């Protein structure tokens, strides 16, 4: 268990910022630019942690709690999820519900920290975040339910365990649907195009980036690190779904997992390059559509 814990933390801390670099590089390549180096986020984080903080006069302790919880939640949530061949550190029957509500905790504090500044921009981000998440949560539950039914296990480690290979043979259609849904959830939860644009700070159609406008220094570093880890966690679920098989060797499997994550980051980069951001009022419609699609995959299993 200690070894698994160390591997989990190592992957989280070391690999997470790289994914952001790959996404950036892919987008730059599409745009014909050189782009920032792959390891840019590592330097950014290092620099941010050396800086001082400037906080708004209207804020309270909530403002500084937001970033801390934004990092603590992915750190804890990751321990319940298998990372490729590295099994989950902790697991108990029904940990999937805990997993979902952990991210709700992070959302609660990110949104309240944004409201703490009293800025109308950040209020807008908070409103959008909590409103859209109302529609994401049912989707996530339906996705997890499909996996529960297929694996017969109530733990995340069982659901993303070795039974997935057999499930692809018996219920491939359902799995393809939830794969699409999980990709949408990943894009929404990680503030990616077409739902949110992580690059344009001042755009009024922003969601996540606008909530963290007033954070600076180590606080901003915590937020960026937490966001990168969150992407890695959702990516780990996706990669596990796509590449459920084992090559027979632990280290080979681990390599496969890492390559899969990098490939996923590349895919997100491609999506961001070839799509435009959705109109704001279209987003709830798309999310409701995704909910229905995920529910459809549940029905496919029930027949």
């Amino acid at each position, binding site marked *: 268990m200690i070894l698994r814990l160390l591997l989990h933390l190592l992957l989280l801390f070391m690999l997470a910022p790289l994914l952001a670099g790959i996404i950036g590089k892919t987008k730059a390549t599409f745009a014909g630019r050189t782009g920032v180096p792959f390891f840019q986020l590592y330097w950014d984080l290092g620099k941010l942690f050396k800086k001082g903080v400037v906080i708004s006069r209207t804020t309270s302790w*909530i403002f500084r709690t937001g970033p801390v919880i934004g990092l603590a939640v992915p*750190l804890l949530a990751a321990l319940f999820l298998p990372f490729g061949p590295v099994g989950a550190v902790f697991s108990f029957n029904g940990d999937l519900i805990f997993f979902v509500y952990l991210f709700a905790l992070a*959302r609660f504090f990110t949104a309240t920290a944004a409201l703490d500044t009293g800025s109308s921009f950040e209020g807008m981000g908070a409103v959008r975040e909590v409103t859209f998440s109302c529609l994401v949560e049912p989707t996530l539950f339906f996705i997890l339910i499909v996996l529960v039914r297929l694996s017969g296990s109530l733990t995340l480690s069982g659901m993303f365990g070795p039974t997935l290979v057999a499930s692809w043979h018996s219920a491939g259609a359902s799995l393809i649907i939830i794969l699409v849904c999980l990709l949408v959830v990943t894009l929404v939860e990680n503030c990616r195009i077409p739902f949110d644009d992580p690059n344009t700070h001042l755009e009024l159609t922003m969601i996540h980036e606008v909530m963290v406008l007033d954070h600076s*220094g180590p606080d901003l570093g915590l937020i960026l690190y937490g966001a990168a880890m969150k992407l890695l966690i959702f990516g780990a679920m996706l990669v596990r779904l796509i590449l459920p098989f084992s090559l027979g060797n632990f280290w080979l499997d681990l390599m496969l997992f890492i390559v899969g994550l990098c490939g996923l980051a590349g895919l997100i980069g491609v999506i961001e390059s070839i799509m435009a951001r959705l109109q704001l*009022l279209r987003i709830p419609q798309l999310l409701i559509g995704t909910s229905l699609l995920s529910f459809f995959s549940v029905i496919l299993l029930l027949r």
Partner: protein
Amino acid sequence: MNLLFWSWGILLVGGLAALFPGLPRQFARWLGCCSAVAGCIFGLGATIDSLGHGPATYMYPWTVPGGAVSLSIDGLAAFFLVPIFLIGLLGAIYGFGYLADSSSRTPGKIWFFYNLLILSMTLVVTAANGMLFLVAWEVMSLSSFFLVIDDHKQSEVRRAGLLYLLATHLGGACLFAFFLGAGTLCGSLEFSVFSRLATLPPIAASTLFCLMLLGFGSKAGLFPLHVWLPEAHPAAPSHVSALMSGAMVKVGIYGMLRMLSFFSVTPAWWGWLMIVAGLGGALFGIGMAATQSDLKRSLGYSTVENIGIIFFALGFWLIARAEGHTLAASLALTGGLLHIWNHALFKSLLFFGAGSILHGSGSRNLNRMGGLLGRMPVTGLTLVAGAMAVGALPPMNGLVGEWFIYRALIESGGEAQGMAGFYPLVLMGLLALVGGMVILVFTRLIGIALLGQPHHHSATTAHESGWPMLAPMMVLTGLCLVAGVLPTLLMGPVAAAGAILGHPLLLPRKEWISAMWLGLGGGGIILMIGMVVIVTKIFSRKGSVGSASTWGCGFQVPTFRMSYSAEGYVELAQKGLFCSCLRPQISGGRAISLFPGPAELFHRSTDLVLTRLYHPVFARSADLCSRLRRVQAGIVHLYLFYIFLATILLLGWVAHFQG
């Protein structure tokens, strides 16, 4: 049992003594508060005693037909006595501070009714005779009514009180019919013979079920009988709102559970009825809570939502039991029972917090608050904790009950084939939607009331409440945290209550171990937060902390009026999520011309169940009844004639049947 009698004695004597005319104000306050505190401590002692030593019963004859002073504290009663006495105790301490500067001429009055409410609620819970139950129920309804109209000089308080009185008595009428029917069919009003209800033919049993769902549901605030609840809670003093929301509505659920315990076999459609009403209430309640700008009204609607979730769980228990799915039934029942306790803890905490804000800033309107966390640090902290608990966020206690309910749904939906597996999964999606909306409602409540800049000058002069008010809130915060991190502590009481409801060994040990892990996960997040804080401190030791104004994206003169209002916060959700029945009425507010003049915006969110369903029905029945006025002509001779006629008819009836 003796301890319980002591508790009742203290409550009654103390309450009556505080009512004594001519008593010095301070003395009446101390007397009322101390008697409530002492009574509740004795009551808690009695409850713990019965949990340790098994059920206790007491029997004393009573001259009322069909009645007897027959009392019993079993596992189910003890399960409900704990929150009543606990919140009664904390509410009394809180009320001592809350009412300190009230200008009421008779401070003893509110204490008398407060003590009477605690006494009658515990009497309802321990009564083992239908007649005694009804009497206690009526005392409970009336004492809470007098508490609601404490501030009766305001017309809206009187209106809320009247609505409450109507609702509670219409519900009470259903209960009279229920006990009349059940007593006739069983041959006695003693609960010990009510087990004969299990052998009733389906039609009679179902009629009784509908009567009790109406009667107990109206007290519990079950949708669509909830209309009194969001009106009465803002009208009542805050410690009374807390006691009503935390304990009194639960007494309605107690009645439901007690009567259901007599039916060993229940058809599945009873459960479906409860699920439809419960889930409807959860969705409606949380949607309405989002559009209210009155802090306590919003909390009242949140109570409707939580009661909905509890009824949902209990309904699912009935369905799973009817289908023979024991594990899912046990999980649902455990979830429902745990949510009863957890809701009692966090909702009274939230009402205490709302009262503290009202006390400190003088307003219940969210748009007159803002930035209160700085001026009221303890109130703010406990409110944030309460909001986390109601949002079912780890590590607080709200998650535990909902976790069991989700488990029950997964358990029955994860295995069953075909349509049997379909329904639980639909319900699960809807429950997740409610969970998401709770976050929306409570980030709004915290964000608009406590954070940001003051929206009104009254918020800039707000002051923190005194220790008598803060201490109960801190105790409740602690309890919410403990119940969230160590849910297995509640295993004993839940199992004792489950035994009465026909699940002797409520849950396999394995499930409680999972629940223990859930608690450990809650502890884990605290640990993780601590670690992140320490590591960040170490890495960024050199960093200085400066302060500046909030970045206005280049705008030089930002004012508080540009930040979000309580109504603006839910605008997106109204457009994208809510069905039209939940949308508030908005008029005005449009500035059209190039140089627009001042404009006004009206925003009003009314309960459509009240305005579209009950108001027309009651107006129509009032119309019909007005035709009866001809009988009531106001002529004394006519009334004498009525009396004469009634006497003759009665004599004839007696002569016919007796002779």
